[in-house]
């Protein structure tokens, strides 16, 4: 919790003292009035906050100014600017690149959740105890070991061109679907390990407490271990999702046109690289809301339950 909000609410809502404060002690305490000391401390803290804000702004501006002059003052700047940052090319590239982005987003929207679910399943299987589950455990381990090591681009090529070559009945030849499948296979191996790390970081006493109130193994995982594990690995998962978002572009090897491929087509016809910069910035813009949302979510979770304090 923020100390600022606590103290402010105190100042505006004068306390009436704890309930029953006067009944049997015989002493009626006067309502609370903030002391001089408190007001002075709060004024001091405010002035510190103000000062650090000023320092932060000034140093940011100074760094930005230095960068600006170093870059724009460099001898090759005019040519570089024309090749990479031309507004005209940027405008004409915008529409095809945005079109390409639709494919990236579709792939992300389908592959992202699939990967998370599959990764969680594999991680759960890997943490199963007992000899009965040995074959399952071995399978999951082998899956992770193999696909985490196998280069994504080779996997994509193998699946996008290899599967159609098999000429199986009822199996798609669509390069986008096959590319998506390759992404899912590769990324779920990574994500499984992230989940496993989270599961194993939950203190064993938590399992003991959960089993002792009668929860089954599965219920213990579902209601006690996973909620704590997932909370801890959210930043790592956001990392993987941001990385996935960029790798969705790799489906172009099968001929699909995503944002990067669209930009490439523009570059090939004009030899101006601005469209690639536009596509790159597009990816950045897509990643930021995802990260901020995850940060907000985890902060909210923490605020509700942590003991808090100031260290």
């Amino acid at each position: 919790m923020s100390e600022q909000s606590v103290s402010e609410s105190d100042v505006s809502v004068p306390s009436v003292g704890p309930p029953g404060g006067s009944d049997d002690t015989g002493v009626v305490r006067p309502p609370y009035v903030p002391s001089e000391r408190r007001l002075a401390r709060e004024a001091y803290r405010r002035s510190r906050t103000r000062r650090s804000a000023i320092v932060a702004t000034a140093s940011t501006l100074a760094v930005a100014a230095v960068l600006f002059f170093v870059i724009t003052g460099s001898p090759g700047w005019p040519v570089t600017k024309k090749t990479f940052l031309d507004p005209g090319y940027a405008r004409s590239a915008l529409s095809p690149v945005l079109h390409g982005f639709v494919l990236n987003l579709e792939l992300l929207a389908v592959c992202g959740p699939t990967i998370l679910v599959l990764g969680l399943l594999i991680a759960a299987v890997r943490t199963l105890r007992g000899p009965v589950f040995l074959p399952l455990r071995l399978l999951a381990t082998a899956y992770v070991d193999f696909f985490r090591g196998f280069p994504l681009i080779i996997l994509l090529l193998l699946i996008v061109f290899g599967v159609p070559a098999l000429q199986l009945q009822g199996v798609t030849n669509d390069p986008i679907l096959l590319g998506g499948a390759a992404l899912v296979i590769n990324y779920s191996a990574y994500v499984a390990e992230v989940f496993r790390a989270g599961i194993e970081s939950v203190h064993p006493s938590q399992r003991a407490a959960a089993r002792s109130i009668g929860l089954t193994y599965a219920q213990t995982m579902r209601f006690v271990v996973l909620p704590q594990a997932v909370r801890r690995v959210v930043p790592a998962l956001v990392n993987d999702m941001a990385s996935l978002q960029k790798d969705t572009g790799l489906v172009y090897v099968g001929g699909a046109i995503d944002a990067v491929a669209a930009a490439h087509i523009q570059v090939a016809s004009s030899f101006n690289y601005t469209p690639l910069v536009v596509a790159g910035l597009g990816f950045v813009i897509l990643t930021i809301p995802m990260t901020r949302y995850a940060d907000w979510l985890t902060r909210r979770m923490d605020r509700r339950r942590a003991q808090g304090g100031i260290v």
Partner: protein
Amino acid sequence: MSTVATAPVLRFESVRKTFGEQVILDGVSLDVPEHSVTVLIGASGSGKSTLLRCANLLEEVDDGAIWLDGEDVTDPRVDADAVRRRIGVVFQAYNLFPHLNVLDNITLGQRRVHKVTRAEAERRALELLDRLGLAAKAKEYPDRLSGGQQQRVALVRAIVSEPRVLLLDEITAALDPELVTEVLSVVRDLKEQGRTMVLATHEMAFARDVADQVCFLADGVILERGTSAQVFGDPQHERTRRFLSRVREAGRL
């Protein structure tokens, strides 16, 4: 001020602490004289742990001040790390580091903060562990110790740096009667060595035996304060009497 011999080591002056709308401490004033043991008693949730956490600067007080050797440690300008170096704490939940063995738990602060050599830190740690009957567990990890053993390790971790004042939160909660006696004698020893201590406890017999000063916390203030004989023998407030008679009924005094 710190040169005056009679000045209290720790002084709480109208300390107020709220969590949201809930007022936990509503003007607590208390002097903790040197070489003395102050015991905080009171119902569960009356704010004993909160008061100790405020003194160790783990919580920021809303109003009032806390003085350590004449220095206002609640002033936003003080170096909180330097203040905490002079205070030893045993938490109600022990808070041992599960990734370090007993010896490393105890010597970490010695080596990293107080810059004692490893050999010297381990010698001191083993000496104290031996006193508390834990020498055999020096290389064990906290999760493999019993609750009482963990509690004693936490006690050793707090006293090994010889702090100015010790804040002990429920240090006898998980101990069998024999160990309570043992810890009691450790606390007495510490007192004789000139240590100053503030304890929160529900163990009234322990409180009565060890306390120089007993404080009964209720409704966010210290409702009654006096020597062990005064508070346990002849309590002035109706609330204190009721609390103590409930404790007696429960057979804990």
